[in-house]
């Protein structure tokens, strides 16, 4: 079977799964829904392997195929087909998305068991995977936008999954609207591409672009900047990131799937996919790289001070995506994609472990209240540490190799790009500190109440769940887990999913060790064929110096975290006091929310109020009331002849216009 046939099947299974579960929600038993959901993604993964094997059986140069089902909207010179594009990059993404998603579905199978919205959850989850696959397989900019927006909608649906929780619905709305801003960037970029190149099709666009555009011409720069609006909104880069931390209102498997493994990497994929355009617009690419750098640093500072377990991990995601955006923008394409892969493993794992802990805490996410879970939840703790090690880039783990590959590339490119290496290491230090801050705050120490209960009775805390943000009791009818929560220690599917990911987080980097093997680079190389940037390669010496520095920094960071949170736990408090303004800035998330509120939301509402209360009433209505008044006045004269307001009015008008018409007729002939 050809690679494109496999790819169509990859799309088919999740869509079918979503529809079957969605339509059959009354008829299907809960278990069956979960199984259908999980199996459909697993089948998609299998088909992804099929596509991979089919590609590997071909000449490296011939490994790109387009295929289309039907003309979607092709008239008036627009060529929009329902078409896909299969090449190593899309297959690589397909494998990550379906692979990690299968595990997340498996985890959800256990985790969501007591949730009333079980069917709905799996239907949405499958739809989400379908959307993401559509995004990575799309063969033109229009279908890309469709996948892009579907992903945005699916994340809206999943974030506000517990839809009677108003913090969740607000967060969903925020995510959706910011994502729409991103969609608009994408659509405008597509218009501009069409105007200049006369096509929306990837093949045509990438082929024609180097002929039509000269480097750094304003049009190509504008196209790339518009694409970046889309990329930043979806990948939570500054300043369009504010939806991501709020999105933690959704169930934890959602955070794991959307906000770690797949959706937020879409921007990275987009830049890699359109690298031909970005290489023609180096200015735009540099802007992207600097935004990535700024995001990775700013997000890391926020992750250092967050007391909400999931939000801290969310900021860490932002920061890691910053590395990837930086990587693909400076030309480290394969390295960026490699980091995308390893990050999917360890971040999905971290969220799963966090979910297990949060379940044990009866949905409380505050790390100030957590301690001693190392004893209470052995399996969860071990996997959590595995994830944290990879995130901190502990030597030998997957994150260690992938992060350093990006930084080594920046170094090899030299010149201005050394900044990215240096500040990238600063970010790496913060990463190591905040990841082990979480480990040391949550796992060791005297067990907290919930942990103690777990140790004593083997049961999870059974308090009625409350929304930590508002204190409202949760409405468990619509699908909140209710008093019964599920933790990895008591659920085999969850353990399997976390176990596999823990192994991958630790050893996933071994497929790409400098000087030993380069599986990822070799596979992806045909995609960047002809790109001068992709040809830059760090020397082995640079690679190993980088790895050395990276390893030392990781160990140093973990050491600092150990001192701060285990040896001398009074230190953080004192540091906080000493650096009060800085801490306030970080803890308030650099006031991005407030700034957007002040600059966008308030003015919009004020305009709305003005339109509604003043303009509509006095100007628009005034117009008709005014005419009515005039007419009434005039009507008074006519009333002697005719009674009835409308009739007289109509007559008056007919007479008037007949006269007018007569005038025009006479004057123009």
């Amino acid at each position, binding site marked *: 079977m050809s690679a494109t046939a496999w790819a169509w099947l990859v799309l088919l299974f999740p869509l079918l799964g979503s529809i079957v579960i*969605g339509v059959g929600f009354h008829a299907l038993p809960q278990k069956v829904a979960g199984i259908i959901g999980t199996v459909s993604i697993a089948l998609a993964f299998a088909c992804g392997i099929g596509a991979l094997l089919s590609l590997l059986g071909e000449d490296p140069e011939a490994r790109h195929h387009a295929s289309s089902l*039907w*003309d*979607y*909207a*092709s*008239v*008036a*010179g*627009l060529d*929009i087909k329902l078409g896909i594009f299969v090449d190593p990059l899309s297959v690589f993404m397909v494998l990550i998305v379906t692979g990690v998603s299968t595990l997340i579905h498996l985890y959800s199978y256990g985790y969501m068991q007591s949730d009333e919205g079980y069917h709905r959850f799996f239907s949405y989850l499958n739809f989400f995977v379908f959307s993401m696959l559509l995004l990575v397989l799309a063969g033109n900019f*229009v279908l890309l936008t*469709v996948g892009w*927006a579907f992903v945005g*909608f699916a994340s809206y649906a999943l974030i506000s999954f517990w*839809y*009677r929780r*108003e913090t969740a*619905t607000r967060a*969903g*709305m925020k995510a*959706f*609207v910011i994502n*729409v*801003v991103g*969609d*608009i960037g994408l*659509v*405008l970029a597509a*218009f*501009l591409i069409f*105007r200049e*190149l*006369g096509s929306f099709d990837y093949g045509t666009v990438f082929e024609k672009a180097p002929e039509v555009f000269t480097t750094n011409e304003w049009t190509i720069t504008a196209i790339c900047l518009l694409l970046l609006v889309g990329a930043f909104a979806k990948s939570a880069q500054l300043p369009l990131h504010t939806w991501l931390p709020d999105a933690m209102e959704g169930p934890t498997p959602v955070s794991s799937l959307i906000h770690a493994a797949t959706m937020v990497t879409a921007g990275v994929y987009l830049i890699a996919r359109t690298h031909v355009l970005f290489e023609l617009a180096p200015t735009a690419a540099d802007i992207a790289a600097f935004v990535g750098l700024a995001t990775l640093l700013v997000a890391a500072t926020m992750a250092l001070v967050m007391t909400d377990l999931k939000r801290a991990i969310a900021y860490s995601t932002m920061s890691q995506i910053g590395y990837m955006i930086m990587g693909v923008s400076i030309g480290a394409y394969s390295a960026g994609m490699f980091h995308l892969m390893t990050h999917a493993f360890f971040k999905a794992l971290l969220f799963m472990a966090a979910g297990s802990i949060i379940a044990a805490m009866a949905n409380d996410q505050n790390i100030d209240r957590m301690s001693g879970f190392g004893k209470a939840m052995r399996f969860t703790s071990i996997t959590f540490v595995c994830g944290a090690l990879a995130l901190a880039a502990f030597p030998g783990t997957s994150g260690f190799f992938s992060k350093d590959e990006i930084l080594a590339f920046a170094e090899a490119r030299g010149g201005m790009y050394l900044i990215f290496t240096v500040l990238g290491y600063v970010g790496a230090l913060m990463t190591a500190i905040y990841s082990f801050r979480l480990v040391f705050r949550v796992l060791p120490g005297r067990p907290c109440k919930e942990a103690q209960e777990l140790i004593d009775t083997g049961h999870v805390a059974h308090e009625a769940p409350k929304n930590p943000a508002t204190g409202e009791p949760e409405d468990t*009818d*619509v699908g909140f887990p209710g008093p019964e929560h599920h933790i990895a220690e008591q659920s085999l599917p969850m353990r399997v999913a976390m176990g596999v990911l823990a192994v991958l987080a630790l050893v996933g980097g071994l497929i790409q060790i400098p000087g030993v093997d380069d599986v990822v680079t070799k596979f992806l190389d045909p995609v960047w064929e002809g790109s001068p940037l992709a040809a830059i390669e760090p020397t082995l010496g640079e690679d190993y110096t980088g790895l050395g520095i990276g390893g030392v920094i990781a160990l140093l960071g973990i050491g600092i975290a150990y001192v701060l949170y285990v040896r001398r736990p009074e230190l953080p408090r004192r540091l906080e006091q000493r650096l009060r303004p800085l801490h306030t800035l970080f803890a308030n998330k650099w006031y991005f929310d407030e700034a957007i509120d002040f600059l966008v939301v308030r003015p*919009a509402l004020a*305009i*709305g*109020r003005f*339109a509604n209360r003043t303009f*509509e009433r006095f*100007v*628009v209505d005034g*117009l*008709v009331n005014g005419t*009515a008044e005039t*007419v009434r006045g005039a009507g008074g004269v006519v009333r002697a002849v005719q009674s009835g*307001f*409308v009739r007289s*009015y109509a007559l008056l*008008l007919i007479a008037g*216009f*007949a006269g*007018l*018409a007569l005038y*025009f*007729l006479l004057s*123009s*002939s």
Partner: protein
Amino acid sequence: MSSAILWAPLAFGLLGLFLPQKAVGWWAVLGTAVTLGLAIVAAVGFDTGSSAMQYAVDEPWISGLGVDYSLGIDGLNLFLILLTAVLWVGGVAFAAFREQERAKSFFFLMLVAETATLGAFLAQDLLLFVLFFDLMLVPFYFLFGAWGHDRSGEGGITASAATLKMIVYTLIGSLLMLVAAIATAVLAADGGHLTFSLAALNEHGLGEGSQRWIFWFFAAAFLVKMPAFMLHGWMPDAYRAAPLPALIVFSGVLAKVGAYGFLRVVLPLFPDATVEFQEVILMIALASILYGSVMAFTQTNVRLIAGYSSVAQLGFITAGIFALQADGSDGAVLQMVNHGLVVAPLFVVVALLLERTGTEDISEMGGLALRAPVLAALFLIVVLATLAMPGSANFIGEFYILNGLFEAKIVFAFVAISGVAMSAYYALRLYQQTMHNRKPEGLLSREIGLRDGLILVPLVLCIVGLALYPQVVLERTAPSVAQTVAKVRQNEPPESRLASMSLEEKAEVESGALKIVP
């Protein structure tokens, strides 16, 4: 065929007057269903690649005045006729499922309204068009005035007062249009044989001076009907007063007659004025988009949210037409169909919400999805299509419109697209505040019943079907649209026409295969 489609509803309406009160509702449903069947037959037999008038009927009617009974179907009106037929089945069936006061007159008026609306779409004679255009509103005056709701409280208004306001607005527009139509024919005849036939008028161009004022007379009528910004004063009160079954068809179809009028009458007959006033109309369209969107997200009455969102949507459609590009107008026609298909089910949902909760105010609703998951899912699809979610046909419509605008007037396109972001907010807000969030104490909710499902599900299936294959509309629309747009652009200087061509066309011109005729 055209005649059969046109008169079927009226025939059923007249016969219905002799039936007992109880049966009249179902009789009316049958009448609309037969009309729909005829429309479908016409659509199936439609020759896709052709821009010519099909199923044409052309008989002299008032020969002294040069008025013909001339009907026909082409790419511009085919899907609007289908839309009309579909929505009338929905609206009439919705009413038939419920007790109606004075049922005989109610259904009679509904069917008269359908014939009049179909007439406006089918007419290929200018005076016939104007007649149907005016006739169309008469049954709605009665429906709104006699079966409407009086509103008390702040900003309250009685149904008859709201109707009066609508009459004042639309009458002005109608009379202006009547005068303009007569003037067009007289001036075109220039002392010779008087004719109102659109085909004939297309041949005889008017002088630029006369085009200029006649353009505005027609534009005024069409802009009021849509309604466009500043001419929408009648809309909020009329929408709040209207009985919901009538509003389902009114909002879905009547606004489009205005936009259709631009394509059918204004662009071909007054090409010079169209080019001259392009930017003025675009400004009005943009203002409608922005103002409609802003108003939509401040309203709490569900009818008004839908109403103001229509103002914004019709703004997009107008902008698409006045981009004066083939793709813009293709998108506009598609979007007319799309908008009818979303706004009608939206009002069905409004009616169902009202029956369940007793309120139309979203601030008094919430959390209804739990007891009504199917209704919520259907509503969600409608809402997503309303906000032109990529993947819906509405997105393709807007995409074509904006692409056309982008080619023609890039700045306008950038402003217009901000309306897309706002639509995401107001549409989703409508869904969220009714279906999600906390349920107010004592609010009842129940699942959609089988009967209402029979109305809502087919409409939603139409939305989904078009989403999967919008090409079905586009490929039938494109030839006629291309002809209309070419008519407008024929007087442009060759350089500017070259600038707006696609790359393939440019290559053809360069190679000499295609010639620009000045």
